[in-house]
């Protein structure tokens, strides 16, 4: 009986790994295609796309696409802009949204339930539907800067950051996570005379690693993939983000696919780096909360 059980366990293990490898391959293939194609001339890339050669480092391989891509577009500027805008937004979003969630969960105030419901309702409104009024507002907002008082936020970093600092999804994630923290802990702190700010800073946030990672990754991906908004509000090349920069690789008729793949490979690096940095806490968060 012991031998049979062991065989079954081995078979189950093999089956499980086979399925996992198959799923991994399905997810990895598009990335593999992108990276492999970035080393191939456009013509070969298109011909290879009809077979498994598309995923293999075969044929006429070179770094020419990367050289050409850097000539065609100021990729370093675009990546810097995207990382800056995304990084600042993520940090501010984590701070503002966690504070809001803290107020919703731990502090009693009238109208809390109604406001939270309204906030959740905004989740069903796509950003695209509010971009036009947002654009009109942004073009008239006041600002006091180095040049004194001025009207209009267009063509700035702040117009790419400020509208996205607070969002319902991040607040919702923090609220769900904070609800699972032991209430007794917070009450004990209050009895000891700790202020709300101290409890937020020294008790709640240090326990919130998983939700911080989840919210940060989701926000990072949303911000890094921004296209329509920066397209509408940014006219200067020096502050354009990576997704708008993708347009440099197409014209009316011809697309240099090899250069496109090289560009995509380059701009994927910050995303992968960010994910790998937070991977452990992100997986822990998914495992513990079921939030994806």
């Amino acid at each position, binding site marked *: 009986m012991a031998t049979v059980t062991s065989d079954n366990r081995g078979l189950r293990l093999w089956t499980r790994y086979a399925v996992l490898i198959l799923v991994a391959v399905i997810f990895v293939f598009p990335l593999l295609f992108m990276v492999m194609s970035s080393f191939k001339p456009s013509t070969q890339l298109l011909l290879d796309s009809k077979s498994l050669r598309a995923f293999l480092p075969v044929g006429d391989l070179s770094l020419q696409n990367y050289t050409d891509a850097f000539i065609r577009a100021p990729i370093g500027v675009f990546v810097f802009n995207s990382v800056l805008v995304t990084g600042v937004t993520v940090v501010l979003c984590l701070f503002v949204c966690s504070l809001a969630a803290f107020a919703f969960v731990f502090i009693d105030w009238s109208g809390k339930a109604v406001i939270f419901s309204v906030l959740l309702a905004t989740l069903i409104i796509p950003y695209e539907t509010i971009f036009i009024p947002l654009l009109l507002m942004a073009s008239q907002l006041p600002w006091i800067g180095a040049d004194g008082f001025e009207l209009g936020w*267009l063509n700035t970093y702040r117009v790419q950051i400020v509208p996205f600092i607070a969002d319902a999804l991040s607040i919702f994630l923090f609220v769900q996570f904070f609800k699972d923290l032991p209430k007794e802990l917070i009450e004990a702190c209050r009895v000891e005379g700790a202020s709300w700010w101290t409890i937020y800073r020294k008790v709640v946030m240090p326990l919130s690693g998983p939700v911080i990672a989840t919210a940060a990754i989701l926000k990072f991906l949303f911000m890094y993939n921004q296209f329509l908004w920066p397209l*509408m509000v940014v006219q200067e090349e020096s502050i354009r983000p990576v997704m708008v920069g*993708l*347009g440099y690789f*197409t014209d009316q*008729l011809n697309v240099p696919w090899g250069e496109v793949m090289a560009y995509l490979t380059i701009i994927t690096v910050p995303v992968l780096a960010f994910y790998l940095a937070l991977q452990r806490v992100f997986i822990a968060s998914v495992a513990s909360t079921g939030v994806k």
Partner: protein
Amino acid sequence: MKTLPILAGLVISTSLAGAASAQTDLSLWYHGAGSANAEEALVNELVEEFNASQSDYVISIETFPQLAYNDAVGAAALAGELPDILDVDGPVMPNWAWAGYMQPLGIDESLLEGFLPGPIGSWNGEIYSVGLWDAAKAMTTRKSTLEKYGIRIPTLDTPWTGDEFNAALQTIAASGDFDYPLDLGMAWKGEWYPYAFSPLLQSFGGDIVDRTTYQTAEGVLNGDEAIAFGEWWQGLFEKGYAPGTSQDAADRETGLIEGKYAISWNGNWAAPAVVEAFGEDAIFLPAPDFGNRPVIGAASWQFGVSATSENPDGARAFIEFAMQDRWFTAFSDGTGLIPPTRSAAADTKFYAEGAPLEAFYGLSEGQALVRPVTPGYIVQAKVFEKALADIADGADVADTLDAAVDEINEDIENNRGYGHN
């Protein structure tokens, strides 16, 4: 003693600053960011020379990727942030003029004498934009191919008739020497469809919209001539004369040169590679005449003045500065595009007498017809593209064209006729 030089320096720097501020800043938006050819560099050179040529205006350029350019202009118009000088695609210009993005150009029209029709952007009786170049299409093939199959080499004066063209395709297809006798460029999407294929419809006697009023497509996009065109179009794919909508993009680029196709319906921008591959054997032939007249598309990117420009005189001065043969020649030599005047063409390396692409100038001069000059074109172009793709894929011709007419007419009605006089 040190005070005097300091004061003198202050006076001089203040004077210089005053002189500098006397120049008016103008902005120009250009669509070609990332373009692999010399066009962007030439636009920069043009602006630099204009800035150096006078002391009243200083133009600064902002470049946009073409993919996003029209949307960026739309957003800027909404926010009141349009530049002084706009770069605009010829067929899109009426829409921008109608939407209030642009103002009539008001330049000295004598500068436009001898221009090809394509680079002049007119709508409702006003000129709104002017281009420094045009583009043309031709039936591109090898002289030796036609001679091998005993096919007459057509000329601008005596192009192939529809029957001749069909017979040529049949002969080449029967030889089995090529994958397809004709490459229409079905792998290219978007504006290529109306630009390249509506001239074939027009040659049959149909059109995308009725140009007498621009208020309906009824009778022109679904009339007898249009249905005849649609059936011929569908036949090209059913008979295996041309690759359909699933054409490989790589084949579109190299199929003619690699011997997969015998004839390619392509633009002058693709011609240099063909000349390089086939030398004097390469020939560029006029569009066939399917009964109405032979037609090719026209119009490319042009410069205009935004409606909100506070310095239209400066914008006009720049555009007039650009209207010189030397610039037309420089752009043509740099990009391979067709100069707008014959006098400029005579000095270009591609379009001068005896030059390899000379035929294209004659085609632009003799066969060009601009796409429908209406603000509704941007919708009509997409409807036309879908209809032609559906017919190529086997959809019923009459039903598809009727549906396209309904969609175009509904759009015209929804936009209250698009403001045509």
